[in-house]
């Protein structure tokens, strides 16, 4: 039986089954690969436009923020990989890592929803990805609830 996130003092703990852990690790690695790519359909959502109505300002802004933002967005996935890799039985997150997991789970969901949308545009259903997205949403919701207690 896999329990949800539980609070342990200032930390939050959760155990993962091996298949759950591997899935999260794969998703994090995929996200890091996307962030490292020059072009990916998902990047439009992960690194969005700050000035959608002003192409000139938009180009200037992304010119000096894009690389930094891509690094910022890699941090949560990297932290999740470290947390999942160092304690296979379960993770124990201090407040800083709780924040990284909240951001990371969110970015994983954003990336997956873009993938699902892209497939749907071609008429391809993605039931497995939709289930994964639901599970990530459930994890995120649970973590937020425990944090708010």
């Amino acid at each position, binding site marked *: 039986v896999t329990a949800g996130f539980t609070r342990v003092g200032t930390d939050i703990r959760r155990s993962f089954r091996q298949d759950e852990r591997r899935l999260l690790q794969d998703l994090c690695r995929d996200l890091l690969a996307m962030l490292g790519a020059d072009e990916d359909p998902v990047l439009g959502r*992960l*690194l*969005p*436009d*700050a*000035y*959608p*109505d002003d192409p000139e300002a938009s180009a200037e*802004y992304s010119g000096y*923020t894009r690389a*930094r*933002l891509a690094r*910022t*967005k890699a941090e949560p996935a990297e932290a999740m990989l470290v947390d999942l890799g160092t304690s296979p039985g379960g993770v124990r997150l201090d407040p800083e890592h709780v*924040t990284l997991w*909240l*951001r990371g789970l*969110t*970015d994983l*969901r*954003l990336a997956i*929803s873009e993938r699902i949308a892209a497939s749907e545009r071609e008429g391809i259903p993605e039931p497995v990805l939709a289930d994964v997205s639901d599970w990530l*949403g459930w994890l*995120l*919701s649970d973590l*937020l*609830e425990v*944090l*708010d207690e």
Partner: protein
Amino acid sequence: MADALEELGTREQLRLGSAWVLIVWDDPVNLMTYVTWVFRSYFGYPKPEAERLMLLVHNEGSAVVATGTREEMERHVEAMHGYGLLATLQRTES
């Protein structure tokens, strides 16, 4: 006269200096509780204010979440994107 012009210039700068807004947009993926958490943890808003803004985004499609100089709003936009929220900035219509 020079002083008056200088003062006018300063006033103009102040006016222009605060004439930008940060807009957060609704999106179908982000959880309402997550958006509330972002507003609390990044802006330091109390929970009721964070929830009010989140509901404004959710119900109206977007909300002005901060106002200030262009530089400040660009910093906030970058932070919001870091959290995965859809955010833009624009000059206020006055």
